[in-house]
């Protein structure tokens, strides 16, 4: 070997290391390239349904809710929600100067009984709750296996096949919208009835709401009443300080509601 060359020729170890790194980089570059794009357009979901043409939103007018529980019953029937667990539920707030009281017996499924509180109530109202389908959702961020995801039309869904049932997402959700299914031991939650809305139907809870408290709309559809309300009315969201960007909007929401 020539004595002057070793400084310019890389050692065997350095060469192998560099080559491996280069290969890894090339792998990353090409795996997300044109091939993936081609596959993606080939396998668009649902015949006759384009998920890029929709972006759903939910609107709840708490002033109209009568606490009948039809929504929670319909949800359980539509989605086989096990007893004692809820994808949607109704809370009752009884508020006075001296205190406040919140209850939700069986999620409001059986309606609400008369209630006695230890203070003079000045106002009382019902607030339906469900998954907020947040844009910046903590539940997806904490999922270690990529089972939770947000679709292009705005739903936060759980892939039961990927879910390992660690329940990080149940802990992460600030709205208590998720639970572990007692049978499958995977995370379950409201899907805004994805199997219905992708067929042009409304979610079951909206379908049966007798007072028009619950409304479901599409932000990409012109003249949509829910879109109009969100764009023009004073709407509130739950726990806005957490910056999760909920896509459930509330009309006439009281400060007591968390």
């Amino acid at each position: 070997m020539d004595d002057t060359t070793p400084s310019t020729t890389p050692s065997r170890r350095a060469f192998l290391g560099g080559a491996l790194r280069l290969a890894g980089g090339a792998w990353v570059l090409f795996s997300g390239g044109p091939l993936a794009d081609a596959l993606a357009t080939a396998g668009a979901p649902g015949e006759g349904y384009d998920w890029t043409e929709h972006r759903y939103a939910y609107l709840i007018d708490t002033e109209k809710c009568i606490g009948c529980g039809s929504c929670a019953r319909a949800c359980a029937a539509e989605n086989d929600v096990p007893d004692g667990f809820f994808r949607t539920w109704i809370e009752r707030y009884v508020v006075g100067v001296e205190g406040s009281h919140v209850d939700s017996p069986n999620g409001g499924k059986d309606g609400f009984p008369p209630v006695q509180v230890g203070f003079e109530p000045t106002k009382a109202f019902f607030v339906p709750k469900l998954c907020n389908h947040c844009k910046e959702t903590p539940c997806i961020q904490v999922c270690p296996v990529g089972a939770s995801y947000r679709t292009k039309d705005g739903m936060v869904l759980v892939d039961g096949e990927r879910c390992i049932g660690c329940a990080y997402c149940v802990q992460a959700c600030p709205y208590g919208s998720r639970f572990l299914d007692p049978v499958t031991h995977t995370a379950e939650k409201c899907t805004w009835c994805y199997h219905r809305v992708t067929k042009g139907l409304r979610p079951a809870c909206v379908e049966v709401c007798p007072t028009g408290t619950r409304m479901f709309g599409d932000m990409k559809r012109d003249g949509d009443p829910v879109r109009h309300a969100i764009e023009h009315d004073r709407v509130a969201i739950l726990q806005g300080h957490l910056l999760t960007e909920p896509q459930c909007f509330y009309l006439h929401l009281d400060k007591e509601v968390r």
Partner: protein
Amino acid sequence: MEHARHVFRAVLVLVVVVAAVSIGRGFLVPPSYGLHGPYRYDNVQEQMDVRAPRHGGVAACAACHAAQADKRTAGGHRTVSCEACHGPLARHVAEGKRSAAMPVDRSYLLCARCHRKVLGRPEGFPQVVLERHLQDQQVAGPVEGKVCLDCHDPHSPKP
């Protein structure tokens, strides 16, 4: 070409490593994973097909029960979906045909879910204290069974 053997060996190792990684990845990662983000894209379609919709809406009920549907549309319960009281259509209809009798709840408890006076309902909403309402209407007997339906037609209730 003594040194070429080193290059050949390195390339061989590289090829083996790349092949092992791609084969391993093929087994471990579902095919549709990562197409639109870090999730299994096939699940979107699975969620769409998870089950047939069970609530059919008023129009589906009216296809057979036109009389009741018309009565409802003309009355005070015009905003109340049939399925809010009767339950989902799928309990009664399968593949466009009657599959089972629709269970009908005629109990006063069904009416009470909306119309019993409880704290929390909007003030303008019609609600009654059950016992007092019976006294006021001079109906003898306790609040039980289908006592509401003795006077009120649920498809077109009079106040």
